[in-house]
């Protein structure tokens, strides 16, 4: 029993060490000289996979512009984030995301993620973690939505 508890403790510790929870104003996205990032993305709602695909984002002066598409290339949505005023707009939203509640929630989540460096404090309804391999997880605790962004090797 004692050995079992020790094993569980070590497992919990190793998991805690492998994923680090971020706090503002930590930097999440490191654009590098090309100014572009690519991720494999999964969006889970209530622990069910709702969407998988690719997220590409570019830093263009004061704006971050991005597209989320599925593996076949079908667009889920575009977003434009303006660093100067912290605003975020969704564009070209596919029909099954294009419901008022969904848009508002997705917009709020992505705005929190992209504005993270400029935030003054954590949002108690949202949590951002990053692991050693650079996988970013944004969790909307209130609505049980999880966005998982895993870095994609560039080609």
């Amino acid at each position, binding site marked *: 029993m004692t050995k079992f508890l020790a094993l569980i403790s070590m497992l919990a510790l190793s998991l805690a060490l492998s994923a680090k929870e971020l706090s503002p104003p930590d930097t999440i996205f490191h654009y590098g000289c090309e100014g*572009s990032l*690519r991720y*494999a993305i*999964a969006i*889970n709602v209530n622990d069910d*996979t709702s969407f*998988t695909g*690719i997220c*590409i984002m*570019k830093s263009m002066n004061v704006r971050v*512009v*991005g*597209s989320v*598409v599925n*593996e*076949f*290339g*079908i*667009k889920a949505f*575009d977003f*434009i984030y303006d660093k100067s005023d912290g605003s975020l707009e969704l*564009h*070209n939203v*596919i*029909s099954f995301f294009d419901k008022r509640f969904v848009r508002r929630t997705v917009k709020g989540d992505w705005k929190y993620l992209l504005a993270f460096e400029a935030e003054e404090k954590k949002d108690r309804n949202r949590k951002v973690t990053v692991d050693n391999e650079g996988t970013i997880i944004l969790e909307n605790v209130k609505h049980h939505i999880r966005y*998982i962004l*895993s870095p*994609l*090797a*560039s*080609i």
Partner: protein
Amino acid sequence: MFNKIIFIIFLLLPLALLAKNDLQRVDSHRQQIIISRINQSTSAINTICCDFEQTKFLSLLDDKLESSGKMYFKQPQNLKWEYVNPYKYVFIISESKVSIRSMQGVEEIDVRSSRLFQEIVNIMVNSVTGKCLSDDSYFDIAMYDSDKALVARLIPRKKEVKRIFNVITLYFDKETFMLSKVEMEEENGDLTRISLKNVEVNVHVDDKVFSLD
């Protein structure tokens, strides 16, 4: 006067572009003949194996996403679409079931449970075989002839597909009447182009290929 000249130039520009691409619209009689030849050619197909290269042009980012993989088809309605690079993703249609393996794991969907899925499955399978050209319930079809290919421009009729695609363009080899390229234009200005390479027809394809096991 100057504005009228500019207006006329803009009207003629699309025609100029078509001429540059040597695309000539065929009349309805010739269209039926071409479709018949494609059907004749594809009716002899039992299996297809090929590589594919996909390019997604993202209008808002002025950028593109390139991916590649393998495609397998076996009559009557077995299709495997496997992305290998830069991401791993498998999509299989077999016996009214869609199986997906993504970074999130495995998912199986009964095609009959979703009308949108049914439409997508039918389009994918029928596009591979060219059968979509014979069923005008799905698309309004216009055929074009060029030096390099026979081109079918498909305007979706079904609401579920119209929401996603404006136009789907199929390119058929003029000698073999086999599908060589697909382009899908979205309303937002994005374009997805899929080119089929190293196509092998009627080679042995094991049924196990269409399983995630």
